[in-house]
């Protein structure tokens, strides 16, 4: 008795229902300290940190809608005659997979909405992962101690793409069947073991009757399980190592500045989930995606022009289109030209991607721990390498739709192919050089502002008759009027209305600038804190 009472700070049993529940749990799990520290976890606030959140939320939406779809979908490849309510296909021979997808679209109330939310979220899931990865790459978030989380991220992206491909192959419509046939050809192209792998996966020569049931279990159990496990470790490591943050007022390597999980960040993050869900619901309601009933059931003798995969497979489609017809034949063996753009190229790309943190650490000999992010301009080589990779990727992606572009802009298809081939070699170095120069220019501009101050827009006439623009120094100046602040890796204010708002959004663009007389009084304490913060970040004192 006495034991339990002394452990309660307030010294008496809680009376409210919530309090009693908490007491019940704490007596059993000794959870108070864990709960408190979880609630107190600090999250740094930056718009670019929301990419990973979008990926996580769209994955949750995928699980919810996918489970719903699984209640109605049948991956069987047994041939049936369609007898559903979509009268245009009635009597047509098709697989059960296609039949049940039509069923979800036309004979399940709200099924089409669920299908479309699922498809849109899948597109968003991969897109958000890519955006998140770019953010981490360009800000150096992958550096020690986060190399393993980068690897997990590359794994998540890879599995996300495979999961998407497995998913959109399931309906067995004309488009997805064509995609599966190409996948079969790609596996077939692997030297020595290709035919064995293809027959192992498909169970026979293409198409066989095994591939869809197998892809189904891969799509609903195997890969989602792996993704879920990866997400758990990925997020777990973020909790363990805490978030990175951009340099700024009071932000150091040994702290995290931001808002606590509870209540501020939790409300924002929770609300953001519903926003993302809302976006996918609106997209699904208003924009048709993958209308399989228009494509028809899969028939190996047919294909429609303008066949495009989902966007994340587009770069591989592009590489396949523009790669030359280099078939190697020797003795009695053949190496298909398909192997280079579809197996070797992505193999190299994803290996380089995965190894990048280790390559950079080796090149820069940087072995120290980093929790502060970098501005892309401050690391011109990495930023330019990223731009180069992006240029390479976008040439491939655009080439994946070169027939559409040729059609819509009335360009020769063959010319588009050649544009792709040449751009793939020429554009990346151009992107590298241009980005490098841009980074240096931005760096110089930052230094110039720190040295000479912000342009005020006030033109002054000197007694000599000369006109000069008055510059507002950002901090203390030396005898020549040059600023003495060092660059600290944080954004340097370049406009007057940025000066007193370190790290906060500028007012005056969408919102009216408040009249100084009506400006809310922040109170001396807060005001001083802001100024101290500004000084810490290499920022100016309030000019008045």
């Amino acid at each position, binding site marked *: 008795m006495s034991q339990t009472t002394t452990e309660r700070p307030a010294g008496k049993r809680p009376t409210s229902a919530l309090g009693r529940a908490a007491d019940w749990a704490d007596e059993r799990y000794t959870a108070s300290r864990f709960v408190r520290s979880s609630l107190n976890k600090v999250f740094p606030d930056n718009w670019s940190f929301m990419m990973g959140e979008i990926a996580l939320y769209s994955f949750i939406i995928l699980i919810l809608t996918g489970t719903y779809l699984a209640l109605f979908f049948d991956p069987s490849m047994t041939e049936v005659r369609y007898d559903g309510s979509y009268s245009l296909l009635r009597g047509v021979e098709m697989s059960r997979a296609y039949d049940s997808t039509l069923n979800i679209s036309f004979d399940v*109330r709200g099924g089409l*909405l669920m299908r*479309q939310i699922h498809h849109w979220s899948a597109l968003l899931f991969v897109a958000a992962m890519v955006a998140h990865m770019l953010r981490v790459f360009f800000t150096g978030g992958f550096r020690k101690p986060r190399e393993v989380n980068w690897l997990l991220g590359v794994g998540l992206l890879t599995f996300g793409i495979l999961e998407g491909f497995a998913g959109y192959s399931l309906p067995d419509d004309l488009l997805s069947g064509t995609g599966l046939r190409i996948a079969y050809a790609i596996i077939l192209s692997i030297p020595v073991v290709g*035919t064995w792998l293809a027959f192992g996966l498909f169970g026979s020569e293409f198409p066989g009757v095994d591939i869809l049931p197998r892809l189904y279990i891969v799509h609903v159990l195997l890969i989602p399980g792996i993704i879920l496990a990866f997400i758990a470790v990925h997020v777990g490591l973020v909790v363990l190592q805490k978030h990175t943050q951009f340099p700024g007022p009071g932000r150091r390597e040994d702290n995290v500045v931001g808002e606590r999980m509870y209540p501020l960040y939790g409300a924002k993050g929770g609300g953001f989930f519903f926003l993302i869900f809302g976006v996918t619901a609106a997209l699904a*309601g208003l924009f048709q995606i993958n209308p399989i009933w228009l494509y028809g059931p899969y028939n190996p003798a047919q294909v429609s022009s303008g066949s495009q995969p989902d966007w994340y497979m587009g770069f591989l489609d592009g590489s396949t289109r523009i790669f030359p017809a280099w078939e190697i034949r020797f003795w009695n063996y053949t190496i298909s*030209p398909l192997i280079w753009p579809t197996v070797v190229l992505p193999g190299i790309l994803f290996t380089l991607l995965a190894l990048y943190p280790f390559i950079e650490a080796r090149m820069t000999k940087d072995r120290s721990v980093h929790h502060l992010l970098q501005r892309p301009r401050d690391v011109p080589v990495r930023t330019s390498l990223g731009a180069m990779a992006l240029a390479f990727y976008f040439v491939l992606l655009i080439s994946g739709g070169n027939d559409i572009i040729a059609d819509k802009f009335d360009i020769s*298809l063959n010319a588009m192919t050649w544009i792709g081939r040449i751009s793939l070699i020429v554009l990346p170095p151009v992107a590298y050089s241009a980005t490098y120069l841009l980074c240096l220019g931005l760096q110089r501009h930052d230094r110039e502002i720190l040295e000479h101050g912000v342009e005020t827009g006030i033109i002054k006439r000197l007694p000599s008759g000369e006109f000069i623009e008055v510059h507002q120094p950002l901090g203390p100046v030396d005898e020549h009027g040059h600023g003495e602040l060092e660059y600290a890796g944080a954004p340097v204010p370049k406009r007057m209305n940025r000066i007193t708002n370190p790290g906060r959004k500028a007012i005056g663009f969408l919102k009216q600038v408040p009249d100084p007389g009506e400006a809310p009084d922040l109170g001396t304490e807060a005001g001083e804190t802001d100024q101290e913060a500004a000084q810490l970040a290499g920022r100016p004192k309030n000019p008045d």
Partner: protein
Amino acid sequence: MTDAVRPPSTREQFDQPGEIDLETYRDLTLEEQAALGTELDGVQIVHRRERFPVPGTKAEKRAERAVAACFVLAFLGAVAFVVCYVVLPWQYDINSKTYTWFTPVLGVTMALSLFGFGIGAILWAKLLITEEETVQDRHSGRSTPEARATTAAVLTDGIAMTGLPRRSLLQRVLGLSVLALGALAIVPLGGLIKKPRDALFVTGWSTGVRLMTGDRRLVRPGDIEAGGIETVFPATPDGLSTQVVADSVVLLIRLRPGQTVRARPGQQDFGWEDYLAYSKICTHAGCPASLYEQQTGRLLCPCHQSQFDLLQDAKPVFGPAARPLPKLAITVDDEGYFVAKGDFTEPIGPSFWERR
């Protein structure tokens, strides 16, 4: 935010259970009690400000109403969703367009509800919840020397306890059994293995098999106009099944008068008069190469834009395909129908390792 600013901490005083001075704690305000809890987790609140320091202003009421309006929208959207789900016509009807509203209306009402809830929560955070800036200590890098040394000691001691380093027999046997267990886990996957055998080299065509169209009509000379093409399949009972179509689909072409095709060596007699038959499966990635440009005699595969010139015996003239389309030898039987003179003389479709 710096250590100097941090108030002389009660943290050490309260960090251990049983050391809490209840009298002192009870005298603190709720905010101070919470701040103490926050401090115990290594988190300093460096800036905390009510969004509306003066309660009950017009601005505060306005903010509260904005948040409330969002939640009302969430409520109304959800109710509208349920009502529309139950009431609206949803079943496909070719004669009526009313069903086309069902999915957009569901999507929009659902989105409105979710937007309402999401924006409500975010506006609440941004407009009403007390603003704060907090700083949490980050302890990163190596553990303390004691922790590292003792952990290593426990690990090493454990190995010593097993005696494994000096029991070489156990080492070997253990290694062997782990390998065997690994094999045990992998070997059942052997059930997946299917020997490719001849499937890649044979199709549904053989000597005397007639050519039929997709609607099971047998094909005779004269069915196709000069310059025309027809997709044909083996006229066998399963000739239209997906499995047979996948490797047996053939494009039957009738040349225009005056057009000649220089056949590949040994295939001079594969055509019949001005008719030629090629596999429709692209030799690049296996899509059906089905876009035919009559004027130029070019066949384009829409997947990766390989182009085959039929007048050059289906030679690839542009794009990633490396080999011409295989040609099917055809003739006309006694009853005047096209028949195959045998199977293809080479594997159809994309290349693979064992392809000769």
